[in-house]
């Protein structure tokens, strides 16, 4: 076992929270009244239950803290503007007053990205919930960013279209959150991830200025401003509108599953499918541990591989035929369409996590990625290191988003954590083991959950020399360091409360 992985880490969380707390300043006199004037009375919350409700997202550490009655930093207020103009007015007020601003969508992030580390004001965008235009000729939709993913998809479905973006959080997350965390959906192999879908944005910059990027099919007009906001995690401003590509609702959807000899063979099979040029919407390969728990009668030690194809009927049939040809070379056993159907029906059920955790276990998932030439080594290294952490009951993986050049690994771990302190300790040990193993194996530390607060300690190693570019951009747009301080990547040169809070993770 790697000695470093056995050390309680990042125990800096407690110290970091204390440091961040010391950076707290009370809100200036009269600010709440001015916020209420900007967003409307009733849309500024300062009562204790409200502040507690906004002190967390879906980060496991936050959940554990609520469960065990341990403290989390509270925001000083929450404001819910109802229009882009109101967002701009609120942001200007806060920025001019030197108050930290934490953008908030559905609160479904799993890395602590919305924790009000240094206090400040949470700006909840969920009142920005309108679909503004479904353009059937241009095949794009414009919506406000506080709309839930599911509500957008339902509206599109009524009109005969789909975004093709189905992250597990679709029922909880807002459109703005899906963009700001650089999300990927379960059908990403066909439709792409959020960065492949976004055509234009409207955003409010840290000083309160509204910017819009031009809607176009493609442009060669210099660096792409809208892309700055993809994955910006609330550090560069607040997204207020977005325009995204549409697809006609698919004519046919069909699954085809296989049992394959090993995880490594499964990865190789997916790689070959990706080389054919066909793009099944869903490609999911489960390692032997997860395959055994899937309830599909996969033989012990073997792996379940599910493809779901959708689109024009002729394309679906041909695509699955091509998949079958590839799979035949691996002597994979055909399991038919049922496993895919069952997965589709239960794909967003996550009840195991809260149920296990309510019984004193620690459960979480994390996702990494690698190119095809490194993914097998990454799988072996990361699962071995995670399993070696004391208290771990299981660490397993599946691949669920594939590309021509590589794939992701989605890891699930279960560990013993009977009380709050032990639970957080084992949690951080596992994360540290996983992140260090990932970096050593040449993987990318985050495929689609983002950085948030939890991954901050490894962000510098991930970005290497390119980190400075990101920090300069952040500094240029947010010179006071007030936007979501302490998240994504720390900026030691920023003078505001974000300057050192980034080291807390």
């Amino acid at each position, binding site marked *: 076992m790697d000695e470093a992985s056995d050390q309680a880490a990042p125990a800096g969380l407690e110290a970091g929270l204390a440091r961040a707390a010391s950076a707290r300043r009370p809100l200036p006199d009269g600010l709440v009244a001015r916020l209420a004037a900007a967003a409307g009375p009733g849309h500024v*919350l300062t*009562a*204790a*239950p*409200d502040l*507690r*409700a*906004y002190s*967390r997202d*879906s980060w496991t550490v936050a*959940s554990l803290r*609520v*469960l065990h*009655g341990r403290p989390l930093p509270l925001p000083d207020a*929450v404001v*819910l503007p109802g229009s882009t103009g109101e967002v701009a007015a609120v942001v200007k007020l806060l920025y001019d007053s030197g108050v930290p601003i934490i953008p*908030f969508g*559905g*609160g*479904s992030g*799993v890395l602590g990205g919305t924790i009000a580390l240094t206090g400040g004001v949470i700006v*909840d965008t*969920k*009142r920005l*919930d309108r679909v503004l235009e479904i353009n059937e000729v241009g095949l794009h939709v414009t919506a406000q960013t*506080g709309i*839930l993913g*599911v*509500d957008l998809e*339902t509206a599109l479905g*009524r009109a005969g279209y789909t975004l093709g973006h189905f992250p597990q*959080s679709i*029922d*909880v997350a807002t459109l703005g959150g899906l963009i700001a965390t650089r999300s990927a959906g379960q059908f990403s192999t066909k439709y792409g991830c959020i960065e492949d879908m976004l055509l234009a944005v409207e955003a409010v910059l840290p000083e309160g200025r509204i910017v819009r990027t031009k809607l176009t099919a493609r442009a060669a007009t210099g660096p792409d401003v809208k892309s700055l906001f993809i994955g910006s995690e609330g550090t560069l401003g607040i997204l207020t509108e977005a325009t995204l590509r549409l697809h006609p609702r698919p004519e046919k959807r069909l699954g085809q599953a296989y049992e394959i000899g090993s995880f490594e063979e499964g990865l190789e099979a997916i790689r070959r499918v990706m080389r054919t040029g066909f793009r099944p919407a869903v490609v999911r390969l489960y390692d032997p541990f997860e395959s055994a728990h899937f309830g599909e009668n996969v033989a012990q030690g073997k792996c379940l591989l599910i493809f779901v194809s959708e689109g024009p009927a002729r394309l679906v049939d041909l695509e699955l035929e091509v998949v079958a040809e590839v799979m035949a070379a691996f002597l994979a056993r055909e399991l038919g369409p049922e496993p895919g159907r069952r997965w589709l029906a239960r794909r*967003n*059920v*996550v*009840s195991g*996590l*809260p*149920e296990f*955790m*309510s019984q004193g276990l620690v459960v979480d998932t994390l996702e990494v990625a690698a190119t095809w030439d490194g993914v097998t080594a990454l799988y072996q290294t990361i699962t071995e290191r995670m399993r070696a952490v004391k208290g771990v009951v299981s660490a397993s993986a599946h691949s669920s988003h594939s590309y021509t050049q590589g794939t992701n690994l989605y890891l699930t771990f279960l560990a013993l954590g009977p009380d709050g302190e032990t639970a957080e300790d084992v949690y951080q040990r596992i994360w540290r083991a996983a992140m260090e193993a990932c970096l050593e194996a040449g993987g990318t530390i985050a495929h689609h959950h983002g950085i948030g607060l939890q991954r901050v300690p490894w962000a510098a190693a991930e970005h290497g020399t390119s980190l400075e570019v990101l920090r300069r951009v952040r500094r240029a747009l947010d010179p006071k360091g007030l936007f979501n301080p302490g998240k994504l990547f720390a900026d030691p040169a920023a003078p505001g409360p974000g300057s050192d809070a980034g080291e807390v993770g």
Partner: protein
Amino acid sequence: MSDKAGKRFDLATQGRICVLCPNMCRYLCPVASVEKIETTSPRGKATLALGLGRGEIAFSEGEAAALYHCATCKICREWCPSNVDLPEVTRELRERAAREGMAPPAVRNLAERLIRDRSLHGPAAALAAEGASRYRQLVSPGAKVLYFAGCSTATLQPRVVAATLRLFEAAGVKVARLQTEECCGLPLDVLGFREEAAAFARGLAAAVEAGGYQTVVSGCPMCTQVMKDRYPALGVTLRADVRHVAEYFAGLAEEGALGGPAGKRDAGPPVGVVTYHDPCYLGRYQGVYDPPRRLLTGVAGLALVEMERHGELAACCGGAFTTDTVRPGTATSLASRRIEEAGRTGAGTLVTACPHCLEMLGPAGKGLAVRDIAEALAERLGVLPRRSA
């Protein structure tokens, strides 16, 4: 009671599970979908309940208010793979709020009025006198079936009372009414006034026993739900078979007592296509989904087109005593949304089976006719004169 199959956890564990879940049902929660804030999202309420229950948060009026920002519609439980029943998880805290005088002022006012008047919309005794003269020809003292209209129907929807009594008559069922119909106890029970609710329940149970009634039929699903499911929890035994109007007449229709399809009788001209709004307290609470549909299609001979959200996942109209008491604006927004959804079906009439849904949806109707199922059925069977939309 709707008995959703699957896992069972005790209420404390259910609360913890809800706190630990990523709020996956939030999109279905009617209150969260309107109010937009985390505090009144399902997870927000569970988090607050955990903190209040453990004493981490001081119990005061402000803190307790969010516990009432719940439509008690149970759609979250219907969705929840862990079967978390949030209205039940928070019930004890609402009871504590009521006991300690921490319930929101609007809730306390409603409770005080209800306890004083013995009825939701004015003194029960005055209602009794009016009802006795109006429906004299349609009731049979000494009958073994009791029609319990419920105070909202009796006060606000006399046409529904007449329709229901005409349906009993058409089916050849002799029916009695109580001399004075008092509240069933549900509003107080839901709002946390447990003892006061139990007192009303005891009164009704005694009246039913004194009359020797074998069956109690009501068109109000809140009345039938509290009698069926909550009276035992309140320590009250009601010795009668309790049926909602839709259940009861669907049963009679199966025996052929109502004739139908309506076309065979003097049903009058078709009223066009209808859609049906499942009341939360009839569907998710009592599992009654098919009987009203069978009545509308099989007996009334109407064409039924479903809304996007129907049956187990039907959206709430906002008409529970929690939401519309503490946040009337939230409730009316929910009603408007439901009407929009009904409008998308192309139906000319929205039928429901609950006086509270009727009161919420009727004013929001915007050209869509909103009818109680008894009225729609009685009109189609030709036993009640039609009224224009």
